[in-house]
């Protein structure tokens, strides 16, 4: 009977049952088998109101949504064009840099592809970049930059695994830069090969672009400085960021109207927050059951028999996470998989901070993996191109990212060097 229900539930989830419902149903089944009252579930969901860290999520999301309205994207693109324009393949570099910033602040939610894609794709194509190259670049950039503050996936990983969020952000700096950097090199290589026009660096244009974006350029710098210096926690930084963004958008640029635009943006960002956090609440209930039933221990026992070495474990983890990443969005993947994997990884001697960096890198790559990576869907509808075309266009980018994934996974020092310098 119970087995039939479990199979039914798995089928329903694969068919597209909302994940929070699936998680609640799974905890109900588990509690029922263990003869525990269902009231354990609301108690766990209520924990959402007891974690100061979680406040960072609605605040950063709101800031991200505020920034994606109005002219911020245009101003940032103009500025990075004036900086990188003269490099061969510079427009590609500029697109990657702008997208990484936007993805860091909005998470891999498709906002980057939707908000920046419409500006950057025509720009790339009009400057004679190969269309497949441009499509691939824009699709991949939807999940690039996830290691940088104030990335929501990192905050969630820290919350679920109990690792310091500030340390995770420090750890992600080099691996994240490696992922963006290798794609920038690819763009430069291609730009050289195609002999694209390279506008000369113009001090006048640089100055006027800088003046246009002078209020927005400091945002990532301030966020990074506050978090890395330990001056404020991720949550406090989020509160400061929202206040700053509100002030510049409403009073400095006068782009957003308090009574008309803000309520709309607020609703949109709360919808996004609700969608993620309700899964978090449900996942807390499910994790609680898993731990009570010693499930991670049981999986550990089973895996120990199959996988002997650390390398074998990491390899399996990579493949598994890419599969997860191409089926689930990054938030649910973290919420569902992290509680199961963390005890396993510590058994194999993997640092939880390194594990976090691997997780985010893997899941981000999963977004571009055919046949069902989320970026591919979003790009297909945003750019109105068939999926198969996007499979081909993203392939070189995907391969390069997989290469960096190998570095990130098998070279722990890349992630652990910077946090080891932290004293606090």
């Amino acid at each position, binding site marked *: 009977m119970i087995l039939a229900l479990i199979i039914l539930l798995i089928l329903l989830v694969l068919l597209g049952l909302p994940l929070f419902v699936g998680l609640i149903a799974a905890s109900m089944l588990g509690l029922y088998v263990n003869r525990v009252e269902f*009231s354990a579930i609301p108690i766990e969901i*209520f924990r959402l109101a007891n974690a100061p860290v979680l406040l960072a999520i*609605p*605040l950063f999301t709101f800031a991200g949504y505020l920034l994606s309205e109005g002219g911020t994207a245009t101003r940032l693109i103009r500025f990075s064009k004036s900086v990188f324009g003269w490099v061969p393949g510079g427009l590609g570099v500029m697109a990657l840099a702008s997208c990484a910033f936007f993805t860091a602040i909005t998470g891999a939610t498709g906002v980057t592809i939707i908000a920046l894609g419409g500006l950057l794709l025509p720009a790339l194509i009009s400057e004679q970049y190969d269309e497949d190259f441009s499509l691939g670049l824009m699709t991949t950039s939807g999940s690039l930059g996830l290691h940088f503050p104030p990335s929501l996936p990192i905050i969630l990983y820290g919350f679920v695994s109990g690792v310091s969020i500030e340390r995770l952000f420090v750890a992600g700096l080099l691996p994240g830069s490696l992922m963006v950097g290798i794609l920038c090199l690819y763009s430069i290589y291609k730009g050289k090969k195609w002999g694209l026009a390279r506008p000369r660096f113009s001090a006048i244009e640089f100055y006027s672009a800088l003046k246009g974006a002078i209020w927005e350029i400091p945002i990532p710098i301030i966020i990074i400085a506050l978090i890395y210096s330990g001056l404020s926690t991720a949550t406090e930084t*989020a*509160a400061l960021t929202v206040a700053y963004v509100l002030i510049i958008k409403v009073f400095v640029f006068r782009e957003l109207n308090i009574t008309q635009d803000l309520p709309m943006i607020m*609703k949109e960002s709360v919808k996004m927050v*609700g969608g993620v956090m309700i899964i978090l609440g449900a996942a807390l209930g499910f994790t609680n059951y898993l731990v009570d039933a010693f499930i991670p221990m049981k999986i550990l026992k089973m895996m120990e028999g199959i996988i002997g070495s650390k390398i074998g474990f990491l390899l399996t983890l990579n493949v598994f996470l890419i599969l997860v990443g191409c089926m689930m969005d990054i938030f649910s993947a973290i919420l569902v998989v992290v509680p199961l994997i963390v005890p396993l990884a510590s058994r194999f001697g993997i640092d939880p901070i390194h594990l976090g960096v691997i997780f985010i890198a893997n899941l981000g790559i999963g977004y571009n993996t055919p046949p*069902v990576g989320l970026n591919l869907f979003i790009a297909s509808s945003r750019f109105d191109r068939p999926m198969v075309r996007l499979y081909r266009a993203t392939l070189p980018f995907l391969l390069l990212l997989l290469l960096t994934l190998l570095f990130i996974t098998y070279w722990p020092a890349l992630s652990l060097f910077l946090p080891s310098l932290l004293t606090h």
Partner: protein
Amino acid sequence: MIDTALARLEGWLIVLFLWLMVIFAFMQVLLRGLYTHGHFQWANSLMGLMDWSEPMVRLLVLWLTFLGASLITGENKHIKIDLFSTFLPQKWQIVRELVLSLACVIVTSIMLRVSISYIQLEMEFGGNTFLGLPSWIGQLILPIGFALISFRFLLRTIENGLQIARGREV
């Protein structure tokens, strides 16, 4: 009709709560900064007066979560594994939708009942939260949220059922 009116009310609450969250979270950081880095004594006493705002802001996270989740239920935009929506033939899509929304109604109504009894227990034995409010007031969002969500899933189920019934007639 009820659905649109509800959505409007939820929208108002979202705007109100998010403003409260932004303003109080910012004020807390500001006062703490003024006290630790500027050593202003008044900032510290003001923080003492506002000690209720910290648990309130944390509670707002939960309330906003449920309000947002309820709104996306109405728009059918919950996060899910989306393997079959593109591959399944049109005829089966509607059946799939019906089965899924029915399952959602069942699960969320059980949660509604569970959270009501949770609140009842809390009314008897729970303590107080900020500003002397009883703690069950803050937890009210659980039954309210699940009521809203299961109501929306029910509407969807009925809609899908009607569509299938009409399809059969034609």
